[in-house]
């Protein structure tokens, strides 16, 4: 372990030059990026094991866990994947977007270490608290909705985890400060800018988390007598949804990074891509309102305004990225002379056998078509009534966080293995197909969840829906879809395990490579002519995005049709 983290040769100032990206990387930056990323992969393993129990309980033909065990496994699943896998990776991304891309040393590496330790201890506390939950406490799931009590140790763990993340983020903020002090007239690179926007969104979410969990902890240990359910929901979703917006912004930042280094993408419009990030900064947090659309006490006009991110400000941002990233690939590859012929020559000629590239692009496609569209649709005030707390909701966020962010972070690990860990990929044929295998299996499982939720009204967070005591009513009609879901989930688990096998196998048995440029294609320095990138055709991208819009419109209309058939409400 120590060998993995400390490998590499550095000059007298502690820097080395990366042969793939051309970036100057400082020793401390590299070590902490590796440490946070490796810890994230461990969380992925724990979360993946819990996924077996969650998926195979919901597929009641197997019915693996009894209700108390199911709720614990579901909580472990949520916290390790939605929080620990994501957040440890995101701290690594901040260090990549900040000091690594800017070629700076890591300021105050001690803070990074303290932040890391605090996060690690807190993550262990939270897992322990969940595993040992006993009455009168309930397993917290992700949301720990007051006034249903969770174990006191759980709330304390969450508070410590939040503090740990804030401390771990400080070296990033100091880096940006130092960079701007040194070069006041230089604009941050787009990847650093994206990481900076991510960090601000993160800080807002984390402060919201402290506002939520400190009073809730005090209530749980009896210092505060009463906790209001509506207050909790308003406050909790600042971090509950905000943390998912961190995933979004971090993921998009990684998209710009990886499509560039392995696909030869360029930034087609700095102006628009940065404007899109700024739109996120102003509007994305309003998305927390998505969780309150079926709530009492909140007026319809409040719901409309907030759920739409003030008339779709953040959706506009996502639509801009949805064009800018493939367009960057199209124009960048055309410029470099790859597949200049036809509408999609740039795409056919892309390095589809490289898992860094395929996982990134599959992440982009699956996020947009499944996670993105379902999110906007279920986030319409009235449509939400038909989605709220059905299995369609986990369907949606498996489309965003799993098919989008997890695939993207897997790509980042595939990239880091040769480039930062200096290890050639082990089990190469498996690594080549893993992103496709995972995307298809997980995609199918996700679509089944959405169908089960929206077309059968199957509730989420239920260990059994095939029978209810004292009534003949059940969701047995949905059994065929559950069967497809179950099989797809098992395949997705195998695909997820394949990723871990490649990652861990490469670290332990991968051939040591001192020059990763030999195994990663060098694309960033190409470019046969000097025409500005915005002058190349982006017609292929426009075609693809118009197909996306057509699918979006059809799904939108179908959902309103389904709502319109219901009885009169309101």
């Amino acid at each position: 372990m120590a060998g993995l983290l400390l490998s590499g040769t550095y000059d007298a100032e502690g820097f080395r030059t990366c042969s793939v990206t051309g970036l100057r990387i400082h020793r401390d930056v590299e070590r902490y990026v590796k440490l946070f990323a490796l810890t994230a992969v461990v969380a992925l393993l724990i979360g993946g094991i819990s996924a077996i129990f969650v998926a195979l309980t919901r597929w009641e033909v197997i019915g693996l866990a009894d209700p108390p065990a199911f709720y614990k496994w579901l909580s472990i699943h949520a916290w390790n994947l939605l929080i620990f896998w994501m957040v440890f990776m995101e701290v690594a991304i901040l260090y990549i977007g900040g000091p690594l891309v800017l070629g700076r040393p890591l300021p105050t590496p001690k803070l990074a270490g303290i932040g890391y330790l605090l996060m690690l201890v807190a993550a262990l506390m939270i897992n322990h608290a969940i595993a040992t939950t006993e009455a009168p406490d309930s397993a917290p799931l992700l949301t720990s909705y007051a006034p249903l009590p969770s174990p006191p140790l759980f709330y304390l763990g969450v508070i410590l985890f939040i503090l740990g993340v804030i401390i771990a983020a400080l070296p990033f903020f100091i880096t940006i400060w130092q960079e701007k002090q040194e070069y006041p007239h230089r604009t941050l690179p787009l990847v650093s800018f994206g990481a900076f926007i991510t960090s601000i969104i993160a800080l807002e979410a984390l402060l919201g988390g402290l506002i939520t969990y400190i009073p809730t902890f005090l209530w749980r240990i009896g210092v505060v007598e009463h906790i209001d359910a509506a207050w909790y929901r308003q406050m909790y979703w600042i971090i509950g949804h905000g943390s998912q917006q961190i995933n979004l912004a971090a993921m998009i930042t990684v998209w710009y990074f990886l499509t560039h280094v392995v696909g030869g993408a360029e930034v087609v419009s700095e102006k628009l891509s940065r404007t899109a990030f700024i739109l996120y900064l102003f509007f994305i947090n309003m998305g927390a309102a998505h969780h309150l659309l079926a709530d009492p006490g909140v007026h319809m006009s409040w719901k409309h305004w907030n759920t739409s991110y003030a008339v779709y400000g953040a959706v506009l941002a996502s639509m801009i990225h949805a064009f800018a990233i493939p367009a960057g690939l199209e124009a960048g590859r055309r410029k470099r002379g790859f597949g200049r012929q036809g509408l999609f020559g740039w795409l056919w000629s892309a390095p589809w056998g490289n898992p860094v590239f395929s996982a990134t692009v599959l992440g982009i496609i699956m996020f947009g078509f499944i996670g993105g569209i379902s999110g906007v649709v279920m986030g319409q005030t009235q449509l939400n009534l038909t989605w709220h707390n059905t299995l369609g909701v986990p369907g949606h966020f498996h489309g965003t966080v799993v098919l989008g962010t997890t695939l993207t972070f897997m790509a980042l690990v595939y990239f880091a293995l040769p480039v930062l860990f200096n290890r050639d990929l082990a089990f190469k044929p498996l690594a080549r197909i893993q992103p496709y295998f995972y995307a298809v299996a997980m995609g199918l499982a996700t679509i089944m969840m959405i169908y089960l939720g929206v077309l059968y009204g199957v509730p989420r967070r239920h260990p059994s829906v095939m029978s209810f005591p004292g009534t003949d009513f059940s969701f047995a009609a949905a059994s065929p879809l559950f069967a497809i879901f179950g099989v797809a989930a098992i395949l997705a688990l195998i695909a997820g395990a394949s990723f871990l096998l490649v990652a861990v196998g490469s670290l332990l048995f991968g051939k040591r490579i001192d020059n990763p440029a030999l195994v990663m294609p060098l694309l960033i320095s190409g470019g046969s002519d000097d025409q500005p990138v915005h002058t190349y055709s982006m017609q292929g991208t426009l075609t693809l995005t118009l197909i996306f819009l057509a699918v979006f419109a059809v799904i939108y209309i179908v959902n309103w049709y389904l709502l319109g058939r219901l009885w009169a409400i309101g």
Partner: protein
Amino acid sequence: MSSPLKPLEGNWWAIPTSRHEKIWVWISVVWGLILFGWMVGWSFFGAQNQHGPTYRIEPAAYRAKLAAYREASTVTEQGLRPAGEDVYIAAMRYGFDGLPVILKAGKTYRLHLTSYDVQHGLSIRPEHALSKQVTFQLLPGYEWVIPMRFDEPGVYHVVCNEFCGIGHRTMHGIFIVEE
């Protein structure tokens, strides 16, 4: 070279944008306006809007209201037949107080919704069409009054879809809608 890894110098804001990208941005702006316009419009011309006042109320006070309502209603073997337009329902671990209830098709009722203990979900669908499902979040301390009119007679099943404890999965209730 326009790299996302290199700092920018000079006036990069002035670099023109490609025609294709501009087209897409304008399409996106219009699409956002359509999404917003339709959603807000549905509040005026649509029949399904979760619109209704909310009142603060202590669970004990709501229990008293529900008891008075039950007193005024006709109690049958199948369930409560409300005397007027008001229908009182409260979720609790692990059941629904006030259900089963017998309603008339085509008549508009005011549903008063709350919870006695923790957060719950009121997820309703007719027996014959599982896809016709809606959910309302029920919070202790808040009474939400939403008008509803069921046009199709039949049995409507209610389950809780907010995790409320170990017995969560057993919660079930019924609306009977008669001609």
